[in-house]
C-alpha cells in the first residue's frame, strides 16, 4: 500500500466499525427496496386492493409457513436431497464428459454439436418422456435434475479447458509432460473458475429439475405441495412452500459459492 499522505486510518483486523459502515452502505438500499415492496403488498392485501385469496398478505404467508413448518420441512427434504444428488451427479458427469471431449479435437468436433443440440431442447418438454422411462419416484426426479443441470457444467468445462494460454501447452510439451500431467497440473486448474460458474448455473437448474419432476410425478416434495395447494386455492400455503423452496436454493447456492471461494483461493489463476 503506498502512502499518499492522507490521514487514512490503518485497516486493522478486526475492524468492526469499518465493517459495519461498509455493511450498512451495502445492505441499506436493497433492504429499503424490499421493505417498500413487502410493505406495499401487505397494505394492498389488507385493504382489499387485491383479493387476499389470490395474494395473501406477507404476514399471512409467514404465519402459514410457521404453522405448517414441520410438514413443509418434511416435504422439503426429498426436494433438497434430490437437488443435492442432481447437482453432484451433474457435476461429476459434466466435468468428466467435458474433459473427455476436450481430450481430442476429433471427439470435440463429433460430440459438441450434439451437446449443443440437446441443450437447445426445452427440457421441460422431455419430462413426460422421463416419466415413461424412469417411472415416478425419487430416482426419476434426480435423473431429470441431472439431465437439466448437466449441460451448463459440460459447456463451462469445455470452455474452461481452453482457458490456459497456448504457450502453457508448448511449455508442458517441451518439458515432456504427459497429457494427463498437463491436464492435472495446468489445464484443469485454469478451467476451475469456468467450471464453478457452470456449477452456479447448474445448482439453480438442479432445483428446477427436481421441482419439475415433483410437479409431474406428484407424490412428495415441495413441488408436489405447490401443485396441491394451487389446486385447492391455498395460496398462502403455496407461497410459503415457494419461500421454503427459495431457502433450499439459497442453501445449495451458498454451499457452492463457499466451495468456489476455497478452491479458487488455492488455484488462483488471476
Amino acid at each position: 500500500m503506498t502512502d499518499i499522505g492522507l490521514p487514512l486510518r490503518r485497516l486493522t483486523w478486526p475492524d468492526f466499525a469499518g465493517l459495519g459502515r461498509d455493511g450498512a452502505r451495502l445492505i441499506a438500499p436493497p433492504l429499503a427496496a424490499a421493505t417498500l415492496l413487502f410493505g406495499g403488498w401487505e397494505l394492498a392485501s389488507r385493504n382489499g386492493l387485491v383479493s387476499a385469496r389470490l395474494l395473501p398478505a406477507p404476514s399471512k404467508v409467514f404465519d402459514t409457513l410457521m404453522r405448517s413448518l414441520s410438514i413443509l420441512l418434511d416435504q422439503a427434504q426429498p426436494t433438497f436431497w434430490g437437488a443435492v444428488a442432481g447437482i453432484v451427479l451433474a457435476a461429476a458427469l459434466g466435468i468428466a464428459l467435458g474433459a473427455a471431449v476436450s481430450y481430442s479435437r476429433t471427439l470435440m468436433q463429433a460430440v459438441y454439436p450434439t451437446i449443443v443440440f440437446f441443450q437447445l431442447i426445452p427440457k421441460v418438454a422431455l419430462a413426460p418422456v422421463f416419466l415413461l422411462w424412469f417411472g415416478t419416484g425419487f430416482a426419476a426426479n434426480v435423473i431429470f435434475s441431472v439431465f437439466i443441470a448437466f449441460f451448463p457444467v459440460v459447456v463451462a468445462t469445455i470452455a474452461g479447458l481452453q482457458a490456459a494460454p497456448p504457450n502453457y501447452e508448448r511449455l508442458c510439451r517441451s518439458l515432456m509432460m504427459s497429457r494427463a500431467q498437463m491436464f492435472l497440473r495446468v489445464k484443469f486448474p485454469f478451467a476451475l473458475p469456468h467450471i464453478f460458474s457452470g456449477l452456479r448455473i447448474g445448482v439453480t437448474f438442479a432445483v428446477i429439475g427436481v421441482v419439475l419432476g415433483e410437479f409431474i410425478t406428484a407424490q412428495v416434495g415441495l413441488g408436489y405441495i405447490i401443485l396441491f395447494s394451487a389446486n385447492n386455492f391455498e395460496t398462502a400455503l403455496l407461497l410459503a412452500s415457494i419461500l421454503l423452496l427459495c431457502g433450499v436454493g439459497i442453501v445449495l447456492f451458498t454451499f457452492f459459492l463457499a466451495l468456489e471461494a476455497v478452491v479458487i483461493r488455492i488455484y488462483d489463476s488471476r
Partner: protein
Amino acid sequence: MNAAGADYVIVDRLSKVYNEGTRQRVEAVAPSSFTVKAGEFVALLGPSGCGKSTLLMMIAGLDAPSAGRIEVAGRAMTAPRAETGIMFQDPTLLPWKSALDNVLFPFLAAQRQAANPPVDRAAALLDEVGLRGFHDHKPRQLSGGMRQRVAICRALVYEPDLLLMDEPFSALDAITRDEMNLVLMKMWQDHRHTALFVTHSIREAVYLADRVLVMSRRPGRIVEDIRIPFARPRGLEIGETVEFNKICGHLRGKIEHVPH
C-alpha cells in the same frame, strides 16, 4: 559443458508451409540452413511475422517442419528433447504457484520426477537473478521483469545444454529490458549453454549475441550471418560505441532492403 567449436545445432534446408494444397497456403519459412556451435549465443533477428518464431518452435520439436531436417547434439530432432530449455514471450508461470514452485515445475514431468526435487538449486538460481526474498511470492505479486526472471530460472533448473528463447523480453519496457539483458548475459556466462535467441530488436541482438542471423520478411529466410566482435563480459555502455551502432545500421539495412 559442450565441446567448443563443433556444430551443435544443424538446421538443414528447413521450411514450413501452412495449409499446403489449399488456397490459404502460406509459406512461413523458406528453406533455411544454418548451424550453431556448441556454447555459442546466436540471435535470430527479423521483423514481426517473418517466421523466426516458427523456426525456433521447430528446433524445439514443438512444431513439425514441412521439409528439411534439424540435428541437435548429433541427433535428428523429431520431438521435444529433455535437455532443451525454453522461454516464451510471456513468462507462462502458473499463477497459483510460488516463484520457487514455478522454478521446480519441470520436475513434475515424469522423466524428471525425483524423490527430492532440487530445491536448493532452484533457490540458488532465484538468488542469482536477483529474486532473493521473493521465493514465496506468487506471480501476480511480481513485476513483468521479475516474472521473466523466474522463467529464466525455470528454463535453467534442469541444466539444459540448449536454451531456446522466443522474444522473451519483447513485452517489457525498455529499461526493464536492458536489465533483463544483463541478467540473461550473466546467467549465460555462469551456466554456459548453447543459446538461440529470437528477437525483433536489433540492439538487443547485437548486445547479446556472438552471431546474428537476419531473417527476411515472409517467407522468412536467412539473409545475413555476421559475427559480433565485442569481448565479454559486455556492459550496456557498448551500446554507445560507434562500432555497435555501425553494426546496428548494417543489420537495419539488411532487414529493410531484402529482395522479395
